[in-house]
């Protein structure tokens, strides 16, 4: 028995990502990213999931991160679901030239009620297909010749415990509420709950 206690309410992860298939891979650099995501949901979700694809432009700095797109996914009743998340290729103008060729990372994140609960990362290798170019790459990268290869077999999945019942943020922008899918919502979450609401200890506990 572990004597450590959680202060926040403990709930089980309601959404499990079962699989992500990388479609159209490898592909020319300019092709859109396509991920076919399969997930399972334990119970009906009153709110949408928000999925994002983030392209890491440079290992150098987060400044070069590009959020390629974000979509809401919903409504999500209990069950197993799938969808294809397609997002345009990164804006090459925002990638440092020195980082165009080589290895970088693309991230898929999913948040619920503003809290990220899963992060899936893939290594991406951008390479010239032409051996000539590979030997002597141009100083200014030629994106039309680059091939993008996502290392699909090796996703890095990080899961975060979040508070599935409450929301992380205050209820601003409530004018954007879609009444239809909200009709099943329990009495609204109290704004201004203690900040670490969604924070559950991620650590493994020492049981001795």
């Amino acid at each position: 028995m572990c004597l450590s206690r959680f202060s926040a309410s403990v709930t089980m992860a309601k959404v499990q990502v079962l699989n992500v298939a990388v479609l159209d891979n490898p592909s020319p650099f300019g092709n859109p990213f396509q991920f076919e995501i399969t997930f399972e949901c334990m119970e009906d979700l009153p709110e949408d999931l928000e999925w994002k694809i983030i392209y890491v432009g440079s290992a150098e700095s987060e400044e070069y991160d590009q959020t390629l797109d974000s979509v809401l996914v919903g409504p999500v009743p209990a069950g197993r679901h799938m969808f294809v998340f397609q997002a345009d290729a990164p804006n090459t103008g925002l990638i440092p030239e020195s980082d165009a060729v080589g290895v970088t990372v693309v991230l898929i994140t999913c948040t619920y009620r503003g809290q990220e609960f899963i992060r899936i990362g893939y290594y991406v290798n951008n390479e010239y297909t032409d051996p000539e170019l590979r030997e002597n790459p141009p100083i200014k990268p030629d994106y039309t010749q680059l091939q993008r290869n996502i290392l699909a077999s090796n996703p890095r999945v990080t899961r975060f415990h979040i508070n599935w019942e409450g929301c992380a943020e205050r209820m601003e922008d409530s004018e954007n509420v879609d009444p239809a899918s909200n009709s099943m919502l329990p009495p609204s979450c109290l704004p201004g709950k203690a900040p670490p609401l969604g924070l559950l200890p991620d650590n493994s506990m020492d049981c001795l």
Partner: protein
Amino acid sequence: MKLLKPSWVSHNGKPIFSVDIHPDGTKFATGGQGEDSGKVMIWNMAPVLREEDEKNENIPKMLCQMDNHLACVNCVRWSNNGLYLASGGDDKLVMVWKRAAFIGPSTVFGSSSKLANVEQWRCVTILRNHTGDVMDVAWSPHDVWLASCSVDNTIVIWNARKFPEMVTCLRGHTGLVKGLTWDPVGKYIASQADDHSLKVWRTMDWQLETNITKPFSECGGTTHVLRLSWSPDGQYLVSAHAMNNSGPTAQIVERDGWKTNMDFVGHRKAVTVVKFNPKIFKKKQKNGGSPKPSCPYCCCAVGSKDRSLSVWLTSLKRPLVVIHDLFDKSIMDISWTLTGLGILVCSMDGTVAYLDFSLDELGDPLNEEEKNTIHQNIYGKSLAITSTEAQLSTTIIENPEMLKYQQERQNAAQAGSGPGGAGLESTAPKLNSVMNGESLEDIRKNLLKKQVETRTADGRRRITPLCIAQLDTGDFSPALFNSVPILPGSSMPSQLTPQLSSDSSQGQASSLGLRPSHDTLLTSPPPSSSTKGLEDNKDGQSPTHVKQSLLLTSASKIEPMKALDSRFTERSKATPGVTAVISSTAGLTPLDSRAKDGSSILKDVKNKEETSSDSEDKMAAINKNLSFTKRKADLLMDGGEVVEKRKKGRPRKDKMATPISQPFTQVETEGPSRAAATPAPVAALKLPTPSIQKAFSLQVSMEPSVFLEVENDVSVVAGSKLSQLRCSRDGREWDTLLPSSVVTAAGSSDVIAVACEDRMLSVFSSCGRRLLPAIQLATPMSALHCSSHFVMALTAGARLSVWDVQKQTALVKNESLLTIMSGADTTVSQSLLTQQGVPVIGLSSGKSYCFNSSLETWTLIADKGDSLVQCADFRSCLPSHDAPVSSGPLAVMQGRNLNAGRLASRLSSTPHHLQQSMTLAFLENQLAAALTLLSAQEYRYWLLIYARFLVNEGSEYRLRELCKELLGPVHKSAATAWEPTTLGLRKRELLRELLPVIGQNLRFQRLFTEYQEQLELLRNK
């Protein structure tokens, strides 16, 4: 006795708190601590039992692992029927697991472990009530109840037939409750707690039977678990940790008077767990020995904090065997095989031991019959099991037809749960799931094109995911993963797997994700660059300023770069500047996540240095080095900055909770009284009328295809305007002229009706013959419908008429809508005429009425705001291939997506009997409505659901009445008013359809037989 410690049964070195062998003996479950969560694992028993199976690579050892518990799992227990596994943990939850059908082996997505889940166990229920760690769970005999106990000092009894219904909560302990055991007869449940007491509770009224404190008064409260056990003959209850003369014992409590005169002595430290062998034994008859009738005896295993295990026979004064130093830490749980010859023991040290006894050592186990005889002798007939179902299980099937349906049901159940066998053969997945006749493969091919994507009010993309399996049906689509060409996780290079365990020692930073593996084979930094990295370190800058080299032979061999690795585990932050899209997830980044990342990177670097030497020989393979500089890690230093950044994150711009306004809740605020009070309410009722158009056309029938074209004011003859009605029916046309402008027109395959400005209604046959002289209406036409040979007119004065053109009679005579249109804001939102000539009016209040011409009254057929609709839960009774009753008038009025039962799952707290009543009421409403609407197909559809529901819920009276009504009198007599048909459906045919449904519940076999025989009799007449 043989002893084995299967080293492969492990939770990566983490403590194993509980072990339980499946009743069929083919597998066992362990529960304990996982990496960052609680862990339940299911293992194959065969490799434990047989060495050759252990060596056979094709026989899986681990069958499934579940990480769903958020914290340490303290107890795992199989139900007696083996269908379910219950687990309880520090996350205060009890989870009930069931084997998912049809799903083949798969891995946990993103897991680097190559160990595939051979079987899929799915959490079917989460039981929430405890406010503290759940320490022990126990299924009652026959799986009627599930009990759980917790450090919140309570014991909760759950209704195992209707999870998550709670039967009761036993309060009375004043300390942490750490063990539970059911009386094998089902009369009692016993619990042991830290409050120095052992309590026995009656199952009849859930009151305390006895409270035993004396043997525990000296006990300290430091024992992790107190797993007590009841002997299989029910005569003895043996406690965990008790004290006798300052020595730790296991106290024997006699059922007779709850006397505490005996105990098991000998352990040097507290007894954590006692477990009786499920078998009762008798002395083995020696060859030639005198067949002296010996007293049957029980066998009991005792595990202790002193790391030793003792096994006792109640016929001996001394233990049969004591095994010391079996483990490095306290024994936590014990489980016997159902054969009574094997025993699994688990320990806090994370290992498991298996002991195998022979019959010579233990004796001859009594068979079930002998055991029952003992029970009978001791408890007499009163042993009565509280469950009716349990009795049913022994009911003999008397009717061969019944047998067939029972077998079908069993087959279905087996398909649903999977055979108990752990072998791979059973999990052979069925490929190509069918979704409306489409295989999953087909769906996947076109998913991008087909999926529904919309824009929200603020312009964001919103995708509606494609539901490929319902959760509650248990009918998960088969073998998704096997059909996936790329299998993340499973197709992982095998050399990556060993890293997992070594990485796990990195503790917190890696707890949530898989740390990048430090790759023995692929990455091998050339000495130059790693030295450079060290130099960087010396510069006193961040240690993560390390240049790293990557081996990139081909695209497929990209290797982790530490510079990028942190990205995998960091939570997203507000990304300032570049990103075009709102970053919303800022709020919850742990303050120290950066720092953790930093430290783990540091470790990575160290590891890399260590591994570089032994991988130098691989350097020849390098044909390309890429160096990456780690981004400035200044953020690592300072949590405060992270906080600041976080605040910049823009709030999420999408929907949040708001007050709900349901349109239908405002109905009829003061309706009836007001209507009664107003002297001339008719004047208030004015329905909208269509405006006159110059010309219009409409299609009135699909099959045959009939088009109507109306052109007003085509010519003026003698001062009066003429209008033309043109009709095209399967290409043949006719036209006619009318003396006034046509306001509205309607038609069916049989009749065409037009209403004119001068309040005249004209009716024509399909070939253009005028069938009736023009009908003069009192007020202008509001809505006009034709269906079959019926014409319905709804006038602006809110009066309704329906005529049968064929018989030239009125079905509804100028009936006022006043009755139903009470309430100021109510308007007619929909009106229709069924094929049978029943007029239906839908109101803005969400209610729909039809006029029943035989009763001459308005009847309510649908109410969208009806709480019964939303709470009724009959999903389990829906026909398997859900061919919806798409086109019936009832479905139309209730909305195509009749979301009956939508709230049902949310109302899990609703007591079952209440929900049952609501569902029953709803289904009966549906039946009555379908009957009133004369909608035969819908009647049949709801009748089947209704019958299924009655069968499932065991409502015999209603079911019998239904059957009786459908069968009618067997012998003809002039006096009976029984109609052999309803809505054109032969009632006896309906009954014949219901019989297979009834046959599925063994309880109704008499009913089944009775009606089946009578039907046969009638058929042969």
